């Protein structure tokens, strides 16, 4: 396991490098005044002499490689620059946003796991029944649905028409109780879950079908194992491995979907910040958001891979191709 860990960690380095390059490229390619991009909107009021002085301090007159080095150095020390609009420190903005996004992502994973396993088992164990068809159809349709549309429909039905849940934000003003936060969480969470769960259901269903149909089942029963033992100790774990693999593989998709959901529901997470930065052409914020998102995805990928490898020693041995 340790060997695998090291290999995997080394594999991260090019990913990190690439993400940092992308983020840096955004900064450099941003049209407009590069000083303003780093100092914020007050740059337009600076005198010419001040402008040059600040430019020199920021190293804007040095080569690109040197600038990249300086930038990486800054980032590692925690300085992510200032927003173009109001000069606020991006670092604090992003970390607030990251917290909110993690809530959505974490809960989404949990709910997806629960729902996929239940629905997948339900469908897989009743092959070709109406349950199977309905569940599979739902999985197919939900995966074909654009995330933002799902969100809009949910808002319309459950928030505007039925008035069951709030339509935007993470909390209500002046009332930040746990129940209130839960209420605000429901619709955005549902949107993410419904649009991402399709493949998981099919994976679980497929795995359960395969195993149930196979000789294994008959042999196990012949040996006297009860159905529930078989289900809990062998079926589910077997079904979960491809799920975790897919989870790691599709983590970027999940993060992307979460971003859109944050936008539609006004959820104050990193996705909304990112989209606001994109629409407002707020390049420093955009750069930082891309960087942090990239790091988040790399971390998620790594975790999923490590999890699968830990559970499945055969894979570990076969990795070093």
């Amino acid at each position, binding site marked *: 396991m340790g060997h695998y860990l090291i290999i995997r960690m080394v*594999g991260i380095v*090019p*990913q990190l*490098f*690439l*993400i940092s390059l*992308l983020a840096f490229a*955004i900064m450099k*390619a941003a*049209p407009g005044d590069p000083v303003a991009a780093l100092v914020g909107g007050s740059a337009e009021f600076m005198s010419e002499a001040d402008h040059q002085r600040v430019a020199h301090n920021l190293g804007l007159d040095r080569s690109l490689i040197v600038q990249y080095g300086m930038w990486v150095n800054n980032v590692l020390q925690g300085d992510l620059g200032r927003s173009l609009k109001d000069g606020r420190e991006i670092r604090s903005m992003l970390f607030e946003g990251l917290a909110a996004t993690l809530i959505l992502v974490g809960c989404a994973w949990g709910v997806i796991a629960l729902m996929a396993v239940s629905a997948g088992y339900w469908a897989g164990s009743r092959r070709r029944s109406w349950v199977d068809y309905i569940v599979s159809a739902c999985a*197919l*349709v939900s*995966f*074909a*649905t*654009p*995330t*933002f*549309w799902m969100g*809009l*429909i949910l808002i*319309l039905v459950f928030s*505007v028409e039925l008035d069951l849940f709030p339509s935007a934000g993470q909390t209500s003003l002046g009332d930040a109780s746990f129940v209130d936060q839960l209420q605000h969480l429901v619709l955005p969470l549902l949107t993410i879950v419904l649009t991402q769960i*399709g*493949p*998981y259901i*099919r*994976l679980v269903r*497929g*795995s359960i*079908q*395969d195993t149930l149909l196979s000789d294994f089942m008959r042999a196990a029963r012949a040996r006297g194992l009860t159905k529930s033992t078989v289900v809990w100790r062998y079926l589910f774990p077997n079904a979960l491995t*491809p799920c975790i*693999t*897919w989870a*790691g*593989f599709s983590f*970027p*998709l999940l*993060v*992307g979907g979460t*971003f*859109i959901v944050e*936008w539609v529901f006004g959820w104050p997470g990193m996705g909304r910040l*990112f*989209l606001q930065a*994109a*629409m407002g*052409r707020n390049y420093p914020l*955009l750069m930082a958001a*891309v960087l942090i*998102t*990239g790091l988040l*995805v*790399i971390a998620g990928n790594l975790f999923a*891979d490590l999890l*699968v*490898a830990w559970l499945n020693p055969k*894979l570990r041995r076969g*990795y070093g191709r």
Partner: protein
Amino acid sequence: MAVERVLELDMDRVPANPRTEIVTAFFRHRTAMAGLFGLIALIVLSTLGPSVVGHDPTATDILAIYASPSSSHLLGTDQLGRDLLTRLLYGGRVSLLVGLMATLMATVIGCAYGVFSGMAPKWLEYPMMQLLDALHAIPVILLVIVSEVFGESSLIKMVLVIGLASWMGIARMARTECRRLMEADFVKGAIVAGASPTRLVFRHLLPNMFAPLIVVVTVGIGQAILLESTLSFLNLGVPTTVPSWGNLLGNGMSSVLGGAWWTVLFPGIMIVLTVLSMNLVGDGLRDLIDPKNRSIGS
């Protein structure tokens, strides 16, 4: 990585003429046929529909603002009195075109990269795959939005942007297939017989990759359409003067609270149906290639 196992397809058995075999079996597969039918209906509607319906998609009619579905406006009108059905059909053209072209581009780039790295010696292949993994780690929506932010919006740019963001999955699959095929006897034989790399690629590798490739491509078109609609919804996609399903939904948001439910329902349904058709076709193809292989989802 663990991913290759998931995408594993059983190609050890190389049929004599894979294409006709698959095609005939395809016609017997029910859901795939449903998907195909949906697609054809869509293409016909988008190309011929607008002339049948007869309205001008940009013609505003202030007397018919927010008209509900009726005989003169089958699907109603939007906030400026423009006929929704016509705009929907024109939007279909845009979405289909962008989806198709972008996926085509992604396929070309992906295949090139995948086959090249599959044929390359280990020392070159390894960094290429690392690069691929790294690129794959960035959420596509991030890449696309960042690219949209720079420069003017236009249809060509959208195709480029979506294409450049989507080739990674195809490349990975192409490389896996290529690796596998390189081990096959008939390929080894061809190499020994002195086949040039070009001949190898075009006569031996690519034709045998066709099957899994087409699966990934059909699903990819669906994903591209979803991407385009999301971008257009955020006003970061096609230019605003061009109707696209995403645009219509963006407009619809302001209308729906006033009771104009048709502005949000119909464009969304179109997107779902289109992507669903694509996925069904892709699924059908995948089932045909390897009935044992369980889908990993679209």
